[in-house]
């Protein structure tokens, strides 16, 4: 139901994002999905990678601020309206979406979701038989 996501603190400096990516490249860590949340002063890079533990270790060694969090992941049927339907279910349960991003992996459409209430979200997923994605499926 959840997969591990890397969060890396990014200072607002030219070339900073690529410094992070270069470290991942050097250690042969593949980026499966990536998104950046930004403010005027700094950002947070969020990424799903092939080996989160190793990524954490090597980024820390290079003095980046990095942590791993568990995050909800769902597989979406490849047809119009799927994502809207999923979000309707969360709204009906009075769950607030903090952020969301989506990507394709092979033939799969995957939705990454962060809500204000993890326990309640899992109940919604189970009750509605939503299909979750496991890390092993992203290798």
């Amino acid at each position: 139901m959840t997969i591990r996501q890397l969060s890396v603190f990014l200072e607002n400096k030219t070339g900073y994002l690529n410094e992070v990516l270069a470290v991942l490249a050097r250690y042969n860590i593949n980026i499966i999905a990536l998104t950046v949340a930004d403010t005027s002063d700094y950002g947070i890079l969020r990424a799903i990678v092939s080996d989160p533990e190793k990524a954490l270790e090597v980024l820390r060694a290079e003095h980046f601020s990095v942590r791993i969090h568990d995050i909800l992941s769902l597989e979406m049927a490849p047809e119009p309206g799927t994502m809207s339907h999923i979000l309707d279910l969360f709204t009906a349960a009075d769950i607030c979406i903090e952020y969301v991003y989506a990507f394709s992996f092979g033939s799969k459409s995957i939705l990454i979701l962060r809500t204000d209430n993890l326990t309640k979200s899992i109940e919604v997923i189970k009750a509605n038989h939503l299909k979750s994605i496991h890390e092993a499926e992203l290798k």
Partner: protein
Amino acid sequence: MSRAEMRALQSERLKKLVDHVYVNVKFYRKRMDDMGVKPSDIQSIDDIVKLPFTYKTDLRDNYPFDLFAVPMKNIVRVHASSGTTGKPTTVGYTKNDIENWREVVARCLTMAGISQSDIMQISYGYGLFTGGLGVHYGAETVGCSVIPISGGNTRRQLQLMSDFGSTVLACTPSYALHLADALNENGYSLADMKLKVGVFGAEPWTENMRLELEKKWGIHAHDIYGLSEIMGPGVANDCVHHTGLHVHEDHFFPEIVHPDTKEPLADGNEGELVFTTLTKEGIPLLRYNTRDLSTLNHETCACGRTSVRMKKITGRSDDMLIIRGVNLFPSQIEHVLLELGETSAHYMLYVDRDNNLDTLELKVELDETQLTDTIRDLQNLSRKISHALNSAIGLSVKVTLVEPKTIARSEGKAVRVVDNRKK
């Protein structure tokens, strides 16, 4: 008054003062006993060098009232300034102290050419800060029509200045510059104003800034010096010749001492400015070291006054900053960060002047355990730090989180402040 007459008056007042503090202030009695100095050793003003110094830390250690030399029933007013560990520095005034304060401020204002025909807009903060009330009483003594508008609210300041026809403005020099620059955008021009004189102080400012203010406002700008520990505004002020500030030395005896050896220095040598409050009753201080850097000049001024002049303050011998008239030690910032314990204590404070108002930005290293996957958590952290700083130091601070280990570590004394305000 001739120099000999002044010295006789100062000697007489110093003897009385030392007797007073030796009997009534435990702190001074102990200091003097430790040094082996008795009140009878003080026979003239020259003997002042035998007396102990007083530092800001002594005021803090005796918080709130232990340095007061009279019972609280004789104290009619208390003022306070921000302190380094959250505790403010407190001072108390007797009825006589308030009368003397009025008197010295009135002298300053008269020296600046202000009279009872003037309308004086006092834009120093009123309250625990000595600026507003200190100037207020002196202005009433002179007989000015006083407008106690206090600080802030630029638009209203300009409106009343125009509507009431204020002829004198009293505030910090940086706020005076800010007001001048705000004229146009608020729909005013110099022609709408009747301002003639500015009485500016509570922060160090240069001669260049004084000339700029005179030009921008078309006024005579005067520097009024003071600090709450000694009295508040009114310790010294410059006359129309602007060749140093005349010290009211019958009340506040000045000395210049070497910053390291604390040996007294002769006229013309720069060092730390030290004051002894010759007439104060509430919280009399012996040789209070202001840590302000200046020089003294005992020559008679072109205006005819014989009182000693101190040079405009050029800097400080410690790391205290003056931000919009508020005293700030970098250690206060550190204290707040350590108390919160949610970031590292590695920080850098950037002081700048934006539109003539001092601004503070704090860059502080993020603690990795506070990093989450949402921006909101980081923003809440910045806001929390900003609130804590604001309530501890009374200044608004922009907080920026930076990567761990990106703030330079120094081997010796840490550099915590970058002051970009124009010199």
